């Protein structure tokens, strides 16, 4: 077993935030029973949407494929329990703000009978890399840290780059969220077994398990499991409790002291990052044959009287989960999917738990009040920014819609962590403003691309016409030249011949 190490890179800025995790970590992970109805969004990852492969009225079993991956970056979806498909219809979801997304609605029969595995489970060491990627893809596994990038494709891309480290992300730096912490405490064996599978798949010989220093229990649990495993390729890396040390690029910077290049990926500095829960999900699929149909999520916030971590089926609605933990307090105002800093506020608790849902946060609305005032250029935002941007300048240029300046001041490097927002004494919603400016910029890019394509078409069209015109002129010139070369005698001949022809015809 190796001791936790402390040699770390530097992170600019960041904030020490109140943890607010003590309540939700006070008890073990509780299992939410299978609800009467599951609402399973067809697409739960970033990339190409999945396609449903079941029809309305069809009976499905637990673990059965209900939507297949639909493109180069995609992941399939499985039924979380057995029952009957009653509808495939738009349903409010957390990923698209305020919008709906197509969902497969399953009326559960309560039997929870599982589908039979098509292949027998064999030790993962026997798999070739490519086969293992295919297997992971079939399990519907996506990054569970919140980004939900399809894991198989992330690994596939990483495996063709020169890799040094696999980094397991157990940092979980946002306040309130503790699902990874609890998973590490209770299922350290699954996480580490998953790490071994991932290392085999990637062909790397080194793995960091990064955990924040305020999680001694998790560090202890992982260390104990490591002692049992005797795998000296895996090392615990304790990182300081500074938000946002768990953001992918920031974690790589902390762990390896290398900056992920702007617009690049951690693989550019020899790292691939996977969430600890993703590693556990890989293990459960490869070694137990259980696809990604459930996850641990934290139900917490000042609007929840008894915060806790629950293990629930994908597709269980937030309302069902909150009911299970004992309902809301009075005067709840906001329902947030995700954390206090980067979560998404939704208007309705009918939204289902998806693969990305690491936290269901209910707030009474006491948090964050204050009227927006003019920026006094105090620069606190710049000192807090983990990417070392100058939010005060970006804000200025965002107001002025100055696209060139926004670009040169690095708007696209903004990780939307919310640090600047929180420290702003003028209470300017900087993060929201930057998200909007980014969206506008992307739109503009699309527009520019469209305009460029149109221009290319126009240029090609004009060129073609010009070429045709030129050809015609050349032909005409050639004919004229031929006539000139032949001289007046030839012309007289032609006229004579044509006259003669006319006469013959008569």
């Amino acid at each position, binding site marked *: 077993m190796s001791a936790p190490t402390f040699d770390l890179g530097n992170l600019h800025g960041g904030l020490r935030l109140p943890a607010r995790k003590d309540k939700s970590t006070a008890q073990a992970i509780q299992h939410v029973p299978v609800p009467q109805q599951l609402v399973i969004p067809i697409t739960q990852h970033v990339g190409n949407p999945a396609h449903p492969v079941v029809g309305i009225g069809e009976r499905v079993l637990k673990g059965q494929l209900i939507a297949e991956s639909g493109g180069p970056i995609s992941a399939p979806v499985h039924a979380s329990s057995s029952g009957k498909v009653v509808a495939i219809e738009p349903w409010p979801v957390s990923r698209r703000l305020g919008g709906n997304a197509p969902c497969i609605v399953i009326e559960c029969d309560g039997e929870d009978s599982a589908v039979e595995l098509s292949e027998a489970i064999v030790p993962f060491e026997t798999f070739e890399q490519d086969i293992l990627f295919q297997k992971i893809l079939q399990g519907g596994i996506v990054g569970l840290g919140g980004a939900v990038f399809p894991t198989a494709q992330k690994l596939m891309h990483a495996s063709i780059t020169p890799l040094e480290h696999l980094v397991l992300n157990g940092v979980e730096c946002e306040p309130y969220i503790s699902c990874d912490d609890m998973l590490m405490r209770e299922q350290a064996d699954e996480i580490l077994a998953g790490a071994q599978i991932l290392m085999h798949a990637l062909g790397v010989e080194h793995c960091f398990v990064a955990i924040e220093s305020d999680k001694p229990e998790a560090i202890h649990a992982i260390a104990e499991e490591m002692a049992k495993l005797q795998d000296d390729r895996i090392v615990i890396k304790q990182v300081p409790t500074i938000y946002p040390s768990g953001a992918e690029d920031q974690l790589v910077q902390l762990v390896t002291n290398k900056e992920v290049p702007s617009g690049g990926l951690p693989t550019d500095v020899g790292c691939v990052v996977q969430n600890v829960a993703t590693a556990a999900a890989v293990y459960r699929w490869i070694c137990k044959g259980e696809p990604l149909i459930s996850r641990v999520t934290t139900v917490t916030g000042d609007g929840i009287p008894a915060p806790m971590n629950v293990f629930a089926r994908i597709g269980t609605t937030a309302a069902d989960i909150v009911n299970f933990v004992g309902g809301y307090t009075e005067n709840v105002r906001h329902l947030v999917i995700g954390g206090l800093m980067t979560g998404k506020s939704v208007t309705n608790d009918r939204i289902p738990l998806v693969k990305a849902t690491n936290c269901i946060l209910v707030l009474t609305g006491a948090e964050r009040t204050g009227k927006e005032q003019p920026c006094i250029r105090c620069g606190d935002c710049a000192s807090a920014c983990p990417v070392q941007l100058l939010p005060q300048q970006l804000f200025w240029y965002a107001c002025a819609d100055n696209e060139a300046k926004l670009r040169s*001041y690095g708007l696209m*490097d903004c990780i939307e962590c919310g640090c600047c927002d929180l420290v702003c004494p003028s209470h300017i919603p900087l993060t929201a403003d930057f998200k909007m400016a980014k969206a506008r910029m992307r739109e503009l890019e699309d527009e520019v691309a469209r305009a460029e394509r149109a221009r290319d078409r126009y240029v090609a069209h004009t060129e073609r016409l010009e070429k045709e015109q030129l050809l015609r002129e050349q032909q005409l010139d050639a004919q004229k030249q031929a006539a000139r070369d032949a001289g007046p005698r030839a012309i007289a001949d032609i006229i004579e011949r044509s006259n003669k022809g006319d006469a013959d015809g008569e």
Partner: protein
Amino acid sequence: MEFVRRDAPFMAPTASVPAIMRQVLYALIPAAIVHVWFFGPGLILNMLIAVTFCIGGESAMMVARGKSIGDAIGDFSAVVTAIILAFALPPLTPWWVTATAALFGIVVAKHLYGGLGFNIFNPAMAGYVVVLVAFPTYLNFWTVPRIGDIDYHYVDLFETLHYTLTGGLPEYLTVDAVSRASPLDAVKSGLSTMHTFAEIDANPMMGNFGGRGWEWISNFILLGGIWLMMKRIIRWHIPLGVFGGLLVPSIIMYAIESGANASPGFYLFSGATMLCAFFVATDPVSAATSPKGRLIYGAGIGFLIYAIRRWGSYADGVAFAVIIMNMAAPAIDYITKPRIVGHIWREKSRTGE
């Protein structure tokens, strides 16, 4: 169940502009008490007049701009401007001088540039410079500090009021009875008349570093500034820059010729050096914003204070130094733009490939 949608982050902000401004005001309370002890109630009167005209000017401008008055008054920034202006003016100042400075600072330097956050110049210093140029005689009139062993007349509330309202002392008092050249003036004129600094320093008006009385106000402003730094209302970069910019040339000059130059300590603890380092130059709106930029900005102010005091025709150069560096702040920000994380690696990997 239905919920209200809102943008992330959902945490309460950790700071607010009015809270910052209030703390700046609290930090000046000890220095104000010491000021009144040494120079009489003039400061309080100046504060009242300045606050009245700053808030009046701000309200009028907010109305003229079609905005809510409460928003502007509620942030306490006009009060801070007024209080700093009052500290900068002599204890006995006619009300119209104070009013001119306050109105110019708030109306022209602040609101005509777009209000809080958009002003290029520090409003208090802009106002002060205007009256320094317009009313030089009033601004050079400093009463004698209460320090026991020199000829001293305590200017009471009635006399102060009389001067403030009319611009003259009651008939039974002469100007010479209540006023002295300020230490900076004394040093400037002394050095120019071929006195050595040691000779000037032997005058009972001179204290340990600056002038007696004056240096105690500086001490308490320094304390207030340290408290603000501990509360992280201001950062250390600008004060350090100001001290460095002032001390480096003054130490060099003093080392070369200690007779013809005042001591570095004198420059540090006299005039408005301390007020500038902690309360004026640190005005975030008109200063540079990056840490490196703030060091440069502060050093520029420090050096200009020294240059004006030593080679210029004004006894103190704080206001001019601040105004000049205010103009340089955007350029400083531009050249000290920090490297965005992840941006050097791309260059490296590009050249590596």
